[in-house]
């Protein structure tokens, strides 16, 4: 199968902002969940 190699220009400013917001949106709850789990896990080694 043939595959062309077109690609887009630089990421636009608006998309850069979206990028930061989107990763923050998923990163904060994930980090909260991980920290919560680590705090509980610490009991295992006490």
């Amino acid at each position: 199968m043939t595959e062309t190699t077109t690609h887009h220009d630089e990421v636009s400013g608006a998309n850069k902002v979206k990028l930061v917001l989107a990763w923050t949106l998923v990163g904060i709850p994930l980090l909260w969940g991980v920290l919560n789990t680590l705090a509980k896990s610490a009991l295992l080694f006490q």
Partner: protein
Amino acid sequence: MLGWLDRSHTVAKPGFSRWLVPPAALCVHLCIGQVYAFSVFNLPMTRLVGITESAPDDWKLTELGWIFSLAIVFLGLSAAFTGTWLDRVGPRRAMFTAALCFGGGFLVSALGIHLHQLWLIYLGYGVIGGCGLGLGYISPVKTLITWFPDRPGMATGLAIMGFGGGAMIASPLSVWLMEQFSSPTNVGVMGTFVMLGILYLCFMMIGAALVRVPPEGWAPEGYVAPAQPKKLVTVNHVHVDEALKTKQFYLLWGVLCLNVTAGIGVLGQASAMSQEMFPGQITAVAAAGFVGLLSLFNMIGRFFWASSSDYIGRRNTYMIFFALGMVLYAIVPWTGSVGSVVLFVACYAVILSMYGGGFATIPAYLRDIFGTRYVGAIHGRLLTAWSAAGVLGPVLVNYIREYQINNGVPKADAYSVTMYIMAGLLFVGFILNWLMTPVDDKHHMSEAELKASMEA
């Protein structure tokens, strides 16, 4: 009005960053990963009438256990049967539908709590929510693989990592919400279901709004498809119906099923197993910490192993899962006999990382073997292996343990045979993975078939 859901409206415009697609997928997977934390509702739901303790009219734990089982069954069924539809309509409509089903499932279940009708919860969370789980799970996979032809393992690993991490968010969040909604006359489950339903609906909708598909023929800057691909990486495409006629599909089905069986069997029993193997050393509270740690390694393994597979190859990654898994399962009884909690935890942390890694690496393995065109649909069908493992794993662990205890084996030693059987299952998985070969040319789609399928 719903035209924005069409595939044509999701084609990325110039200036779009492909790194926006993983968070879109994570928006969905972080929500549907809640299913692993559903057990936090079980005990409160046995006290909906009696509030402080179960009343005669309250539901039994055995009845409530069916909610989770139904959700997992419908996850597998919907993933298997909607893959082709998803392929046709694109990721946004699929994510939108998944959000409606999963969020809506919570709302129907809240009504079930209000009316005290268990069948409404079976229907809401089990059937409707379960369909949302299946659709949500497979919807971003093909899109991610198309955006990241240079690192498909890492891309799908990122999304599927969210499924592992979802429970770590949902569990404390649900407990906190139940505390807020509880009162002397209410255990707070209904309010929590309504809140979670709305929250998950909104969060998954953000994912649907963010997701984009690349324009036809797009490739990342500097990426050139290898002229001479590796032996087990095809540049052709296999139709989803044709894939079911290949031995490779069944080999991969077996590989996934056996890898998941080994992990899922111990995951469900982790708390009891740690306390019984280390009596007096691991308390019930510490055991809860152990389960949490396993969830964390399950999540980390999804990203780590799937990303590594981009460099060491999919088959080699599964070889490591099976070979290292065999050694670790064989070592576990010894850690109990020498009383080393640290070694015991370390063994299980690696085992659970490979359990998660198995889920996260399989989409890229499918892409290597069957091509990208129908990878989403094929992945959906392969997830039936998960449903089978969901039954096989816990049954193996529970029945073997019960049989041994009934035959006078001390509780602390009762898991040894189970561990050796798990190691045996992994050996079978090793052989299946070792037998993997490229798909015969006769199964590949012709240029005309591929063009026709694109137009359709």
